[in-house]
């Protein structure tokens, strides 16, 4: 991250350094913002039962289920997963468990 960008993200950024009119030039940087602590319930991937059908990948509102370069889903990105449970309900193979966040 450049010095200028660091300043932008800093909570005490002053008016001389803040971007013009609120424009941001780092598209997609919401990835840096973590929403995982919203969870009260947590999906758990049961890798052995998973048939890689990718239904869970498509229905995730939080882009918290990602796929690798081979097109296979990998484990949850708990930094973003809000624990809505849509993936758990949609999985045809019961390969996702839904448990209390501890």
């Amino acid at each position, binding site marked *: 991250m450049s010095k200028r960008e660091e300043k932008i993200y800093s909570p005490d950024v002053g008016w001389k350094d803040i971007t013009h009119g*609120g*424009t941001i030039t780092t598209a997609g940087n919401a990835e840096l913002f973590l929403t995982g602590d919203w969870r009260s319930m947590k999906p758990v991937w049961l890798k052995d039962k998973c048939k890689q059908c990718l239904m869970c990948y498509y229905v995730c509102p939080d882009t918290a289920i990602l796929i690798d370069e081979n097109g296979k889903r990998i484990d949850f990105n708990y930094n973003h997963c809000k624990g809505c449970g849509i993936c758990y309900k949609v999985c045809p193979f019961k390969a996702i468990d839904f448990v209390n966040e501890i």
Partner: protein
Amino acid sequence: MAIRERLSGNEAVAYAMKQINPDVVAAFPITPSTEIPQYFSAYVANGEVNTEFIPVESEHSAMSACIGAQAAGGRAMTATSANGLALMWEMLYIASGARLPIVMACVNRALSGPINIHNDHSDSMGARDSGWIQLYSESSQEAYDNMLMAHRIAEHPDVLLPVMVCQDGFITSHAIENIELLEDEKVKEFVGEYKPAHYLLNKENPIAIGPLDHFTHYFEHKRQQAEAMRNAKKVILEVADEFYKLTGRKYGYFEEYKTDDAEVCIVVLNSTAGTAKFVVDKMREEGKKVGLVKPRVFRPFPAPEIAGALARFKAVAVMDKADSFNAAGGPLFTEITSAVLAHGATGPKFINYIYGLGGRDVKADDIEFIYNKLLEIAAPGKVDSIYNYIGVRE
């Protein structure tokens, strides 16, 4: 060699737009600015410009489309009046808040209601705190010149604010006057290319514009915007200087007319300044020491400069072609008197005249009456009434 022509204010503005040849013009018809998009559409239809013209379904969409176009990386322009400007209101603030250097021709007309199509300044005066730079024009020539300077001011990296070029509806917009135009190449060279640092259409560096901006950042953005308006003061003079070298026509924050030894002075915007100059000449012949100050730049407001210019008079009348309905005075008056007070000038007595609402004619006699009133006050007399009307039937 400059081109000598005879054009109305609307023709002059449309001609300037043709020479600027912006990427996008989005406009909606409203009297008395309608002719501008009409003329411009004809330029498009005849291939004299290669602008995208968007015949939007409302002024709100005109400004929204200008915002989209300018943010995309293009130069966007529009024209409007009165209720059209009012319908844009929300978007005026968003354009300046997003720091988009859009240029608009505002052909001043009275705001409804009741509905009235004639000239006063209630429309642009209502938008005076929308974050737009406002330039006022006495004549077609000034409207043309201001349009040519507008992009240079708006797009300056220290400014990045939209500009509104105002002229009086019908009085200048529809009156044909002699005008000196610049050659197309000279305009092109003077106005230059628009090269934004960041823009939506830049695939290599996508951006996001218009966030939800909480109390954590909004204030800093507004403070920065306020600074841009301060910066505009310097840029306006630099651009005017360059324009003077190109054309020999001199522009500043305001024009002073026969003020050197004047004892009393009228301050008035736009075309009425022309009538006032006629009255000044006549009264000067009678040996009366009267002068005129005609602001050109209302936003940013040149507070110390105008306070300095007015400090030496004994009495000043500010004429407002818009009322503020505030029981205190018109917008130009309250702005000027607060500047004078804040900058420590205590000499002159100030009075305010609201005039010409809804296109009511203001005659030389009216202005002469005001000058005589000022001379009485300067005599020395006392100010019996600060907030006055002229030309209204009692």
